[in-house]
C-alpha cells in the first residue's frame, strides 16, 4: 500500500488499518488480493471483495443494517453501559479503555441487539462489534445477550447472533468468565422453549465467546475463511511446537471437522437465514 500512497494525491489516500475499521476515503484495498477497490462499490458489496470474494470485517451496525429489513426495528439493552467495578488497571485503566473504545466506535459496548425482521420473519438479531476492545465479552455483552434471549422468549421468535470476538474481557476478571455460563444458560432456556438459535461465526470467533454462545446454535453458520477456535493459533504453536496445518481453525476446517453446518457468503446471508428459520418454525417459505 505504501508505494501506492506515494503516487496518490492526499485526497484519495485511504487511512491505514483497513483491517480494523471500516476504512474511510474513496479507495480501499482488499487485504487478501490487494486489489484496489472503489469504496462505494465495496460497501454495496457488504465489504466482500468483488475480485476475490474475501470477506472483510464488518462493524456491528453495518452488519445488522444489511441483515434486517428496514422496518420495524427496536434496539434492546441500549441503556446498559459498562462500569469498572473492580478498578482494573494494567498499563492503562480499564475506565480509560472503555472511554477510548466508546469514542472510537460510537457504541457503549461490544454487542448490539436489534429486534426486527428478515424477509418478513420476526426475530432478534445480535452482532458483536470487534472494534470495541476486540469484541470482548464483559458484563454488558452478557446482559444484552440475555435480554436478547428474553425478548425471543417473550415474543416467541428466533435468535440470530453474529459473533466476532477475541473472547472474554480480561479487565472484568472472573465476572467476564461468568458471562460464558450466563449466556449459555440463557440459550438453554431458549432451547427448552423450542425456539431456534442460529449462530453465525465471523472473523474472528475465539476463546470464551467461541466456547459458549457461538458454538451453541441449533445451526452453526460461518462466513468463508473466518478464524474460529478456542485457543489462538500462536498459543497452540507455542504449546505443540510444530507448524500448524494449512487452513487450521478456518471455517472450512470447522465444517470438515463437524463443528459448523454451512459456510455462507455474506451476500446470501439474509436469504439463507430466512429460509432456514422458516423451515425450523414450520412457516411458508419467505
Amino acid at each position, binding site marked *: 500500500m505504501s508505494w501506492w500512497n506515494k503516487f496518490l494525491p492526499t485526497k484519495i489516500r485511504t487511512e491505514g488499518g483497513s483491517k480494523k475499521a471500516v476504512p474511510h476515503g474513496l479507495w480501499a484495498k482488499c487485504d487478501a488480493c490487494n486489489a484496489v477497490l472503489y469504496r462505494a462499490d465495496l460497501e454495496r458489496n457488504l465489504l466482500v471483495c468483488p475480485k476475490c470474494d474475501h470477506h472483510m470485517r464488518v462493524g456491528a451496525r453495518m452488519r445488522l443494517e444489511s441483515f434486517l429489513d428496514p422496518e420495524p426495528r427496536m434496539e434492546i439493552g441500549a*441503556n*446498559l*453501559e*459498562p*462500569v469498572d*467495578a*473492580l478498578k*482494573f488497571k*494494567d*498499563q492503562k485503566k480499564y475506565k480509560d479503555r472503555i472511554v477510548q473504545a466508546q469514542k472510537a466506535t460510537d457504541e457503549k459496548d461490544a454487542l448490539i441487539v436489534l429486534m426486527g425482521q428478515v424477509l418478513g420473519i420476526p426475530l432478534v438479531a445480535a452482532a458483536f462489534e470487534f472494534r470495541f476492545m476486540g469484541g470482548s465479552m*464483559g*458484563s*454488558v455483552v*452478557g*446482559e444484552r445477550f*440475555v435480554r436478547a434471549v428474553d425478548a425471543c422468549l417473550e415474543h416467541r421468535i428466533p435468535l440470530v447472533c453474529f459473533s466476532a470476538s477475541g473472547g*472474554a474481557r*480480561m479487565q*472484568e*476478571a*472472573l*465476572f*467476564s*468468565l*461468568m*458471562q*460464558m*455460563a*450466563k449466556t*449459555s*444458560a*440463557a*440459550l*438453554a*432456556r431458549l*432451547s427448552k422453549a423450542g425456539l431456534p438459535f442460529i449462530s453465525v461465526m465471523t472473523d474472528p470467533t475465539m*476463546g*470464551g465467546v*467461541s*466456547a*459458549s454462545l*457461538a*458454538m*451453541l446454535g441449533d445451526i452453526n453458520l460461518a462466513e468463508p475463511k473466518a478464524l*474460529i*477456535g*478456542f*485457543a*489462538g493459533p500462536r*498459543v*497452540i504453536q507455542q*504449546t*505443540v511446537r*510444530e507448524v*500448524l*496445518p494449512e487452513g*487450521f481453525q478456518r471455517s472450512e476446517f470447522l465444517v470438515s*471437522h*463437524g*463443528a459448523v453446518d454451512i459456510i455462507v457468503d455474506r451476500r446470501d446471508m439474509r436469504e439463507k437465514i430466512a429460509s432456514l428459520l422458516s423451515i425450523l418454525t414450520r412457516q411458508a417459505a419467505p
Partner: protein
Amino acid sequence: MNMNFLEFEQPIAELEAKIDELRYVGDDTDINIGEELSRLKAKCKTLTESIFANLTPWQISQLARHPLRPYTLDYIARITTHFDELHGDRAFGDDPAIVCGTARIEGRPIMIIGQQKGRDTTEKIRRNFGMPKPEGYRKALRMMKMAEKFHLPVITFIDTTGAYPGVGAEERGQSEAIARNLFEMAMLRTPIMCVIIGEGGSGGALAIGVGDHVAMMEYGTYSVISPEGCASILWKSADKAPDAAEALGITSRRLKELGLVDQIIKEPLGGAHRNVDATAVSLRGAILDTLQSFDGKDIDALVQQRYERLMRYGNFLEKDSA
C-alpha cells in the same frame, strides 16, 4: 534450596531442616535438646503464621500449583468409599486429565468429577498436566447426565491450568465441548456442588464449574486467564504476572467478597499440602453440609435458583430508557 518449598516458604524450609538435624543429633547423644527443639518448633509455627498471614495473590497462585498440593484422587481416596472410576466419552476416547466415577461419602451415593494433574513426570504426561481435551469434557457431561437420570448429586473438583490448547483438541471441538457443558449444567436436574481445589483456569475450569454451591479451598485460585497470560497480553511481559494476579483478584477471599464463590474451605497452616488428611476432613465436612442442604429440595426450585444465580453475574450501569 528445597524444591518442595516455594521461594517464599524457604525460611520455613531452613528452620524445619534445622529441627530435623537437631532431632537426628538428639538421637545419639545424651544431651537433652528437648527444650531447644520445642523452642525451634514454636518459632517455626510463628514464622509460618506470619508468612501466611500476608500472602500476595501471586504467592497464593503458586500455592495453588504447589508440586505437593493434593489433587482430586488424593481427596477421593480420603473422603469417599466405594469409588469406581468410570471411563470414556463413548465417542472418541478416555481423557485421564478428568477423573469421573460413582462413590459414597458417609454412605451417601454421589457422582464425582474432577480434573487430575500428575505427580511424577510419567503421570504428568499421561494426564496431560491436568489440561483436559474435548473427550474429557464430554466424558464429564456423560457422567452428569447419568447422575441426573439416577438422581445422584454431582460433586466436581476443579484443578486445571486450562483446557488443552492443541491441534487435536481444536479438531475435536474444544469450544463446543466446553460450551455444551455450560449449556447442560445450567439445566441439569440434579444438585451440583463445585469445589475449586487448586487452579481454576478459565473456561477449562468453568466447564465443570456451573453449580448450586461453589466452594473454594482457601489457597485455590480462579481466574479468567492465568496471571502470566494476562501479563503478557496487557503488560506485554510475563514478568508482570504478580501485578496481573493482584489486578485479576483470583483469590478465594476476594472472590467471596465479590459474591462469585459461596464458601471458603480453610486449609491447615502452611497450605493443604502440609497436612492433606486434615484438609480432606474439612473438605468432607463442607461436602456433607452442602449435600444436607440439598436434601428434600424441590428440583424445579433448585434449577430455577441456579438459573437466577447465573443471571445475576455481572456489573453494569442501567440508565433509564427515556
